[in-house]
């Protein structure tokens, strides 16, 4: 039986179909409208990029109160694999499912560029198909991608191996603390990152490195399905 991944769609999401296509390249996938209060029994959840609720107030601040987010939080608490990409990362941080917060880029510009990121923690369900230290070429496109947490939190995350991805040396595009591109929760099942792996799934458009994150969900079998 193949796994089924649910991709959340908020009003203002814009990367949910790319995320859906990327998931569908490795397994079954379906969209989950933000107004639903259940996850249709999916085995993993992707919270995609975009501008949920117009990014009003702060990116992710309103989306975190969507009905579906209560179900996502419960799913995450039970060990279900959740991946937040870009705006989805912002939503998960605002929801308190991931540490830190995302601030306006230090250069005050919207960024759209290919960057290299390093896989720091290959033991999450979203990085299991990667090697530690592996370099992935993946695009970023965001205005508020400067991840921030206080010093004590960063030190704790470093010690616990919870920095999932880092921008390659010299490739930090947004002023993110400690070059952090993505982090995971304490249990490792919730991962968020600013770069867009769903936009890097075919060499025709520059890189297929992003596919590894979605393929990981099949390899990380020990964690997948833990919620069911």
């Amino acid at each position: 039986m193949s796994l089924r991944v649910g991709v959340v769609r908020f009003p203002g999401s814009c990367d949910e179909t790319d995320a859906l296509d990327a998931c569908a390249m490795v397994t079954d996938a379906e969209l989950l409208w933000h107004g639903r209060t259940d996850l249709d029994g999916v085995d993993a959840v992707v919270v995609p990029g975009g501008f949920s609720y117009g990014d009003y107030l702060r990116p992710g601040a309103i989306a975190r109160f969507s009905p579906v987010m209560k179900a996502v939080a419960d799913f995450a608490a039970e060990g279900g694999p959740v991946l937040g990409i870009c705006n989805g990362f912002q939503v998960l941080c605002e929801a308190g499912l991931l540490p830190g917060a995302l601030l306006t880029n230090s250069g005050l510009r919207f960024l759209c560029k290919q960057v290299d990121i390093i896989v720091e923690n290959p033991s999450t369900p979203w990085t299991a198909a990667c090697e530690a230290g592996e370099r992935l070429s993946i695009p970023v496109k965001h205005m508020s991608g400067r991840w921030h947490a206080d010093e004590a939190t960063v030190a704790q995350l470093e010690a616990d191996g919870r920095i999932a991805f880092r921008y390659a040396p010299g490739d930090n595009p947004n002023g993110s603390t400690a070059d952090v591109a993505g982090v995971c929760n304490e249990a490792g099942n919730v991962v968020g990152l600013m770069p867009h792996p769903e936009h890097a799934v075919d060499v025709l458009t520059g890189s297929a490195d992003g596919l590894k994150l979605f393929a990981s969900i099949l390899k990380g079998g020990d964690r997948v399905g833990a919620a069911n």
Partner: protein
Amino acid sequence: MKARVLIRPKQGILDPQGQTVERALPALGFEGITDVHIGRLVELEVSDPSQLEALCEKLLANTLIEDFEIQLEED
């Protein structure tokens, strides 16, 4: 009751908006202005102001990166 909530970037967090405005000032002839910080102002009408603290912590501010200050305006 009318209320204002002032939301500011926490001290020590890079505030590129404030810095950019500050750097533009000398070119306009404004001298001696430092420590420019840019935040947000939320104005609202509230019947029970005791809710405001929780509202700020839950929604209006992200206390990891922002401080807030509530100002009440007596009618």
